[in-house]
Structures are given as C-alpha cells and as structure tokens.
C-alpha cells in the first residue's frame, strides 16, 4: 500500500503547484530547504480547492430555487416528497408498513414494499438531525436541497476515486469536472428530489471502496464497499449495474491472469455481505438469489472459490501434469454443475428470467417491440448524439484520451474504471437517463486525460526552466512518463508547443465551465411543474396551471373523489391534490394503465362504462393547444392507444391515424375526432381564438386548426379549466335518472 500511494502524492504536488504559478514563484527558492512546509502548502491548497469545489457543486444547482422558488420538481419527486413527509410524521415503522389506498384505486399500493427507501430515510435523517440541532426547517427545504448536498459529497468521492486510480491531480480534476458536469446536474438540481440524487453518490462510493479494497486487499475496505452497496440498493434500482459490473470486472481480472488474494478478499466479502444487507430491503428481497439478473454475481462468486481451490491444490501438488488433468476435470465439472443448477432453477421457476427493463438495456429495440410502457417514457429513448454533446461537452473528446492513458498504465484500478466507462457509456447510448450513470466514469477518465496531459506539459516546461528539478519529477513519475519526457526533449519548439497546448487545454476547460453553467441555467433548472415562456416583448411569462388545478382539486372535490388521468400526473395529484388516483408513475400494473388508456381512446359512452366500473369521479387532461405547450396529452395520446391496445385488442392504432400520420385537424380519422381524449382536450376550444390572424380553434401546440369544433359531452361536464387551459378537469355525471 505504501508503495502505491507515495509516488502519487509527490506527483500531485507537481500538478497542484502548476495550478498556481505565483505561489510556486514565491516559495520556489525555499523549496528545498522547507520541504515540509511545501507539503503543508500543497495540502492546504488541495483542501481549499476541494472546499471550493464542494461549494461550487452545491451552488451551481441552485438556479431553480433562485429563479422560481423552493419547490419539488417534475413527477417522481412528488411521490418521494409525499413519502418523506409520511415518514417524518408517522415514523419508520408506519412508513415500512404503509399501505396506500390513495393510489392505484382500487388495487392500492404497498408503498413500504415497493419503493427504495434510501432517499426518504436519508432526507428524514437530515431533517431529524437539523431539528436536533435546533434548526427548525421545513421538510420540503430538506428535500429540495438533498440532491445538491449529495452532489457535493459526490465530488469528494470522485476526488478520492481519482486519487486511487491515478493520482491526486486526477482526483482534483475529476472533482471539478463532476461538480459541474451537465450529465449529472440534470438529475441533481435543487428540487430534483429523486432516487438518483443520492444513488450516484452511493454508486461512486461503492466503486471507490471496492477498488480500494482490491488495491489493498483489506477486509475493512471491502466491508465499507458492502455497506456502500447496501446504501445503493436502498436508494435506487440501478444497483443492478453494480452487481453485474463488479463480477464482470472480477471475471476479466481472472481471465487476464490478474487473480490475487486481494481480489479474492475484496469480492467475496463485498458480495456476501452486500447480498445479505441488500436482502433487508423489502423491494429487493430474495432477488439476489432468485433473479436472473443477479445470477452472474453468484456464478463469479463460485468461480472464485474454484480458483482458490485450484490454487491450493496446485500448491499441494507439485506435479504439473497431474495438476493439468485435475484442472480440466474440476473446471469442466464446475461449469457443468453450475449450468445444471441454473437450468433447473430457471425451469422450475425458482430463478426468475430477466425482466423487460434488463432486456431493453441490452437490446435497445426490445422495449419498442414488446413493452410500450417502457418505450413511452421519454427518458427511456435511445440517446441522440446531440444530447451526448450537450451533457458531456469536451469530456466526449477527453474520454478516449483518458482511455489511452489508462491503457498505458494498466493496473487493477484502471481496468476497473475503463470497464465502468465503456459499459456505462453503452447503456447511456441505449437510454437517455443512463447518461447519468456514465457521467462519473466519463469525468474520471477525462480527468486522467487532463491531469496526465497537463502534468506532462508542465514537466516539459519545468525541465527546461530548471534542469535541477527534473530529478525529483523523474524519480516520482513512472518510468514511461519520464521516457516520454526524454523523448520529447529532442523535439524543437517544445517549450512553445507545450505553452500553446497548455493554453489550449485551459481554453477548453474554461469553455467547458461556461457551457456547463449555461446548460444548467437554461435547460436543467426548470421545475416542469411551473412552465415559463418568453412573451412577445421578451418578458418572462409563468404558467402555474398545474398547481392551480391540483389546489382546485384539493379545495373543491370530495375527499374520497377518484381522479382519472394519464399516469404521468398520478404522483402530483396525490401529493398536491390529496386525491385518489387510478394510475400513477409507479407503472407496476400494466393492465390498469391499459384500462385508462382504453378509456381515453374510446368513444364517450364506452369510456363512461369503464369510468363507472373504476368509480371515477373526475377526469383530468393536460392540454397545450392554447399555450403551445407540446408535452400534453394529445401528443402523448398515441402511447395511450398503444398501451391500451396492447392489452385490449379492440383499440387499434391505425384507427387513429390517417395514412400513418397522426393528425387532429379536419383530415383526422373519425375515431380520433370523437374519442374521449380528443373531446376532453378540445371541448369549447372551437370558440376560442388563440392567435391573432388565425381562425378560432387554432391549436398552437400542433399548429393546426382542429377538426371537430362542435364537441358535445354527454356523460361528463366541465368542472374546471385553468387560466391557460393547460389542465382541464371534467366531472363524471351520475347515470341519468330515467334511463
């Protein structure tokens, strides 16, 4: 261990000193005589940089609070907020056993058994700690600021991780990069109170502790890694990535002949303890031993034992030939037994097959063909190149460079980060939301590229300036780096070239910082529950229709009223409107969602029967035709048809299309013009002039004049429409008295 970290420290000293040239100059002459002092200075510098990064990571995420207000964003965070509130009010055991009768009417949902409690427990602990310290904050403030707080903590982990796989310089750069990387900020701005907010911290912590355990062979680090894994499991379903990546990494080390006692200790301890701990989370339960997605880890665990056993036998037998035979028999029988066990387990149903989500990760086209409910979510779409560029900026170019450096200095740790980077980048390509998982790896690998480049360049400069200095750098750096330095020395203009390259690097990094700030402020700090638009005179217009509608529900409907809406709005209605919903964002029951999709895409009288059978009192639709808000229910409508049609074949997608085209104007299909969703969205819309110079009933979200302006409702009546028509609520009438 000592041999590993020592050179890293002196290397980092070189990097750190380059970061502040004036400081070097001031202390340069006394460098030799006051070595200890320089070390202290370096430490001070490092700590202050880390402290600044810590603060930077926090404040960069506060745009939304400053611009709007301290509020919870989007959809899922409202559920998390509601459960956190419940947890702080009723205590842990009530939370653990919570049966929620307000969602998924009439099925209900066992909240305690179907969520990852890590986030809520974390926020509640922070809340209780603050209250204990006599800071009487509201739980909402804690929830809003949980994500930035954990983003700050992630930067610290990134620093230690970078230090572990490369050196302190890389660690510092990694901390800075990850602090403002848009790919991470997109999910961790203030108010984005979602599982990912703490999960990325837990993910990186687990990886860091595991790599540390592999590097040191220490049981304590492995134990720490198991606890990190437990926290991750408690926080996010993405833990499956860990439990597959780590065995894969171990397998690669085994194959490349890097098996060691350190690896054996790290993996076995982490796997066994992590598995036992993970089983304590109700939502995960016995999946570690019963689900196909976790079988790889178990297989690798058994393989480790076989390896260890073989090692022991090899040590006992001194005959090579005998050992070869023994090896062949053991490996064959081990694989045979494992295969039979897996086959029997799968056939008997004890081991569940891979889930649809897992399949869709490996095969991007799977969800589109088989599971419309997964494919319908925008964050599950395959990633476009532009969003990689948007979220990573220069890291996209630094990443291959970093891979190059990693391969140049291959070690157990760099193999890990390379594997993490490559696999997660593949998944990021499959699903937009998984850019988040890849971000730490991309930042770390890019940091290696930046740090290594800058260090090489500065060492070039410094060898020229002071020949006497090279000795210390040479001794500290690896032999490859120093050979490169000697090789470069022969080239002409190398000092000027190095200066130019350094300027280029700093230019790129500053562009990165500017880009990150701009993206954070423009794209990722909108709460999406309050919409903002630019008016004709450049002034900001706020559409607060969602909250207006939810408060209307809260104030004006009976407390046991059941609201039917598309599942996107379920969490918000229960959290803000405090009313029972039929379906919500926890899409656990496809049939129930399909029933709602069917109701929305049926004619009114057919829909009425469905709504009666579900005891629906109110129907809520989101409509953007007046404001030009494009993610409304009409634009989501084809997904309702697809999901509904997936379970109820009476709903057929071609009925709603004209020549394969989705239209709402006069050329739309008759079924489209008369289905419930169309009627509810466009009821009375034909009377309204939305834009000057356009006919009445001009839909601004789709830019067409609607096809059916004379809509009459038979079984429903308009109950409330918000000021900008974004949310429309209809009351379901009781059956007619005389018929």
């Amino acid at each position, binding site marked *: 261990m000592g041999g590993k970290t020592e050179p890293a420290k002196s290397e980092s000293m070189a990097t750190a000193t380059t970061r502040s040239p004036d400081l070097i100059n001031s202390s340069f002459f006394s460098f030799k005589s006051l070595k200890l002092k320089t070390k202290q200075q370096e430490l001070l510098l490092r700590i202050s940089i880390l402290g600044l990064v810590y603060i930077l990571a926090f404040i960069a995420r506060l745009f939304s609070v400053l611009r709007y207000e301290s509020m919870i964003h989007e959809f899922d965070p409202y559920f998390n907020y509601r459960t956190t509130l419940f947890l702080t009010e009723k205590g842990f055991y009530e939370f653990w*056993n919570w*049966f929620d009768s307000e969602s998924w009417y*009439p099925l*209900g949902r066992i909240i305690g058994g179907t969520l990852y409690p890590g986030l809520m427990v974390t926020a509640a602990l922070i809340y209780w700690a603050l209250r204990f310290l006599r800071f009487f904050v509201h739980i909402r403030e804690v929830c809003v600021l949980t994500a930035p707080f954990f983003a700050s903590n992630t930067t610290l982990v990134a620093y230690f991780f970078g230090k572990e796989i490369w050196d302190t310089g890389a660690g510092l750069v990694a901390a800075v990069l990850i602090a403002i990387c848009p790919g991470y900020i997109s999910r961790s701005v203030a108010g984005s109170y979602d599982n990912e907010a703490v999960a990325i911290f837990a993910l990186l912590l687990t990886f860091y502790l595991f790599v540390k355990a592999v590097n040191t062979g220490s049981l304590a680090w492995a134990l720490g890694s198991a606890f990190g894994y437990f926290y991750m499991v408690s926080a996010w379903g993405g833990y499956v990535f860990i439990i597959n990546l780590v065995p894969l990494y171990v397998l690669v080390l085994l194959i490349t002949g890097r098996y060691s006692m350190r690896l054996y200790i790290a993996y076995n301890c982490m796997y066994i303890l992590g598995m036992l701990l993970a089983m304590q989370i109700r939502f995960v339960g016995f999946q570690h031993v019963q689900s196909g997605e976790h079988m790889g880890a178990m297989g690798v665990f058994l393989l480790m034992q076989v390896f260890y056993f073989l090692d022991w036998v090899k040590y006992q037998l001194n005959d090579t030939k005998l050992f070869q035979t023994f090896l062949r028999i053991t490996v064959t029988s081990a694989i045979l037994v494992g295969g039979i066990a897996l086959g029997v387990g799968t056939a008997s149903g004890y081991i569940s097959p891979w889930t649809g989500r897992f399949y869709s990760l490996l095969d991007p086209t799977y969800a589109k063909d088989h599971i419309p409910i997964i494919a319908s979510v925008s964050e599950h779409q395959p990633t476009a190149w532009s969003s990689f560029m948007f979220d990573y900026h220069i890291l996209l170019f630094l990443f291959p460079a970093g891979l190059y450096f990693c391969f140049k200095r291959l070690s157990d740790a760099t193999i890990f980060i390379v594997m993490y980077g490559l696999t997660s980048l593949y998944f990021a390509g499959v699903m937009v939301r998984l850019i988040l998982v890849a971000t730490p790896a991309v930042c770390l690998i890019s940091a290696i590229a930046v740090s290594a480049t800058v260090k090489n360049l500065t060492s070039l400069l410094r060898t020229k300036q002071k020949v006497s200095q090279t000795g210390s750098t040479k001794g500290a750096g690896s032999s490859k780096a120093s050979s490169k330095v000697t090789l470069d020395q022969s080239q002409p203009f190398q000092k000027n070239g190095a200066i130019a390259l350094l300027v280029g690097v700093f230019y790129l990094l500053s562009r990165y910082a500017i880009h990150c700030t701009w993206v954070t402020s423009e794209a990722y700090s909108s709460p999406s529950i309050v919409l903002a638009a630019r008016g004709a005179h450049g002034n900001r217009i706020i559409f607060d229709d969602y909250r207006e509608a939810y408060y209307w529900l809260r104030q004006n409907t009976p407390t046991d009223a059941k609201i039917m809406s598309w599942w996107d709005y379920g969490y918000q209605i229960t959290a803000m409107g405090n009313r*029972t919903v039929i379906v919500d964002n926890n899409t656990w029951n496809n049939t129930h969602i399909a029933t709602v999709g069917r109701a929305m895409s049926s004619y009114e009288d057919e829909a009425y029967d469905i709504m009666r059978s579900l005891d629906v009192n109110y129907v809520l639709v989101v409509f953007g035709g007046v404001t030009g808000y494009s993610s409304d229910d009409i634009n989501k409508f084809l997904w309702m048809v697809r999901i509904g049609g997936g379970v109820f074949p009476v709903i057929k997608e071609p009925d709603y299309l004209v020549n394969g085209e989705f239209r709402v104007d006069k050329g739309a299909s008759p079924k489209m013009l008369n289905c419930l969703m169309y009627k509810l969205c466009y009821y009375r819309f034909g009377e309204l002039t939305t834009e000057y110079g356009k006919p009445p009933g001009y839909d601004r979200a789709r830019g067409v004049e609607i096809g059916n302006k004379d809509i009459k409702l038979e079984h429903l009546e308009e109950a409330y429409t918000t000021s900008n028509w974004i949310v429309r609520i209809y009351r379901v009438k009781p059956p007619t*008295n*005389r*018929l």
Partner: protein
Amino acid sequence: MMILSRSVALISLFLLPLLTFSFSVDNPTDRRVLVLLDDLSLKSSHSIFFNTLKSRGFDLDFKLAEDPKLALQRYGQYLYDGLIIFAPSTERLGGSLDSKSIADFVDSGRDLILSADTSASDLIRGIATECGVDFDEDSSAMVIDHTSFSASDVDGDHTLIAADDLVKSDVILGKAKIEAPVLFRGVAHSLNPTNNLVLKVLSASPSAYSANPSSKLSSPPQLTGSAISLVSVMQARNNARVVISGSLQLFSDRLIRSGVQKAGSPNQYEKSGNEQFVTELSKWVFHERGHLKAGSLVHHRVGETDEPAIYRIKDDLEFSVEIYEWSGKSWEPYVANDVQVQFYMMSPYVLKTLSTDKKGLFHTSFKVPDVYGVFQFKVEYEKLGYTTLSLSKQIPVRPYRHNEYERFIPTAYPYYGACFTTMAGFFVFSFVYLYHK
C-alpha cells in the same frame, strides 16, 4: 304555563303545514297532488278514483291543464309531491310548464300518473318518451283484440279490452288478487328496450294489435301481441315513480262500475277489476307501499364495536344494515331472505345473503379475503316493486404488517439449527485455528 303551551301551539301552527305537507325521507307518502285535467267534467266522471285518493288523505288540487297560472314550484320549492295528468289532448300546458319541467319534477324524486288516450297530443307523447314509453305513432290507432275483448263491447270493433295479464307483484298491485279482468279502451304503447327501469303492469294478450278500428288495415300493424303494454310503470333511479296508462277511461267511473265478462269465458263478474287495479296502483305510485329505507352500513371486527379505518387481510368482521319498510303510516321492519352484501373490489370477492332478526336488522359475518386493496361493502337491493337500495361504503384492506407474521415457523427449524450450528462451528474453528499450536 299557559304562555308556554300557547307558544307551543303557535309554533306548531306555523310548523303544521311543513309537518304535514312535505315529502320527506321520514314520510315518503305523497300528500299534495296536482291534478291536471283538459276538461273539468273529468272531475265528476272519474270521481270514484279521485275520492279513493281523497279518502286516503291526499290533498288534490284540480287545475285545467291550460290554466295560465299553473306552476309546479315557487321560489325553487316544489308545491306538490305528486302529479296526475289526465289531459290527453292538451297540446300546451299552461303557465311555465312543459315536458321538460315535468321531467324535472320526476327527477326531483316526485311521482307522476300520466294517462293518454286515443289521439294523444305530442306533449303527452313527449312526456311518455321521457319516461321510457313510446305510444303508437298513429294517433288514431287503438288497441284491438278479437279474442279477449269484453263481452259488453257493444260497438263490435273489439276495442274494449278485458285484460287480465297483470304483473305478478304483490308490491305493485297489492296482496289481494285482482280476480276480474281490467277493462281498457285506449292507445297502445311499447317500452323502450334500452330502458331497464320501466316495466309492463298490464299487458295485452298475444292476439292484440294496434290499429285504427274505423279503417281497413292496409299494412301489418307495427305493434302486436304482448309487445303492447296497456299500463306501464317506471321507477327512476332516485325512486320517483311514474304510471303511464294508454287509457283514460280505465280510471273512469263508468268502467269501474261496469260488470265484465271476457269474450268466450264463462266467468262473469259483477264489477270489473278496474277499481282495485287503479287503487292499488295509486297506492304504489304515491309510495304508500313498497318503499324501503336503509340505515347506514355498520361493520366492525368480530369482538369489537367500533368501525375500523382499515381492515387487515383475513380479519373476521361483522356486517349489519337496518332496513325498514313504509307501511303507509309507519316504518315497519322489513322481512326478506334475499338481501345480499358484496365485498367488492372491481368484482365481488364475498357475496353473502344477510340473515334478519325480523326487527329490521340484517346481519352477517365473514372473513376478509386474502387480497388487499380498496374494497366496498355494497348492498344493491333491486326487487320488483320496491324502491332500489343502493348502498356502498369504502374500506381499505391492508396486508400484514412486518410484525404480524409468525415469528418462528416450525418447518423452518432445520434452517435455524443449521444457522446456529454454523455460527458455533465457525467460532470453534477460529478458536482451534488460532490457538492450536
């Protein structure tokens, strides 16, 4: 003392109209009935029917149908509890009344007797259509029956029908059987097939048909046989009751008094069944009979008395509901063996017939099914003639809590044993390994 009793008398004087003339849940029988006539002579020609109503305590208010001062409500309050429309030829009602305000009257839970006759006006047809009944479109058509006409039908066109196909319901037509056929001369109607609230009380025989008796049939009649209803009733979802008759003469003194002999039948009756029929039917329609009321649904765990906010799966519970029947004067316990309760979540998971203690209390007990969700206790009691009882109460059912499972399962003892022996073995092994040498 004197002052007190006087003031009480004064107060009760003010309250008296309210107490006696209001339609209320406690006293469902109608009191104030508006009778609309197209000719005041009907008052005397149908006096027997009106007098039976008066003798039962109804306050009849006779008005001409075209009276311009007609009003059903004043200041948003209805003035009447029931309405009798004996004005088949009236084209327009007086005052602000039209078919919609009549429909609103029914929708407010009030009762209606509507009688059409040959050449019924569009207004009367319109009201009937609102109630799920369609009169024959040919305004000159009448019900003709060449087999079950009354022998006293002197005209020979067989339009005076002696009908005896009555609905079999003690609730609607009373316990006493109507022996004599009911005489009917009027227009045929059919029931709207999509409306399941309306039913035939008096049906025509299979040989009846609807046509103009004075002209030759040029094409087959549209309404024939038992599809023809002579008198129908409709009970709306809010339990408002409506009687629709195709014959105004059915209620007349002449037909009530006349004897009857069905053609081809040896039985001759002194008096037709009309009086009994219209009297019993009016008792039903004005809620003197067949009106049920239910108390709230009561449920609790076995051994407890308070209603819980939530049940657990496999809880044993007791359920009860009180049902009373209005006898015309007071609430009597309802006795029946077919009241059922459903424990319902999208479909009934438990369906139990309630047993009664003959004092109005219906009760049962059952085990909550092993399914969690938001359930409802549902009592849907729809019995011919009775008002519909549709009660439901929502109750969530939760799964077991973490500490409600068995702590130790006997079948798992080998596993517990294995667990502890492994621990002990590990301890011994470590001890031996560390301190053996």
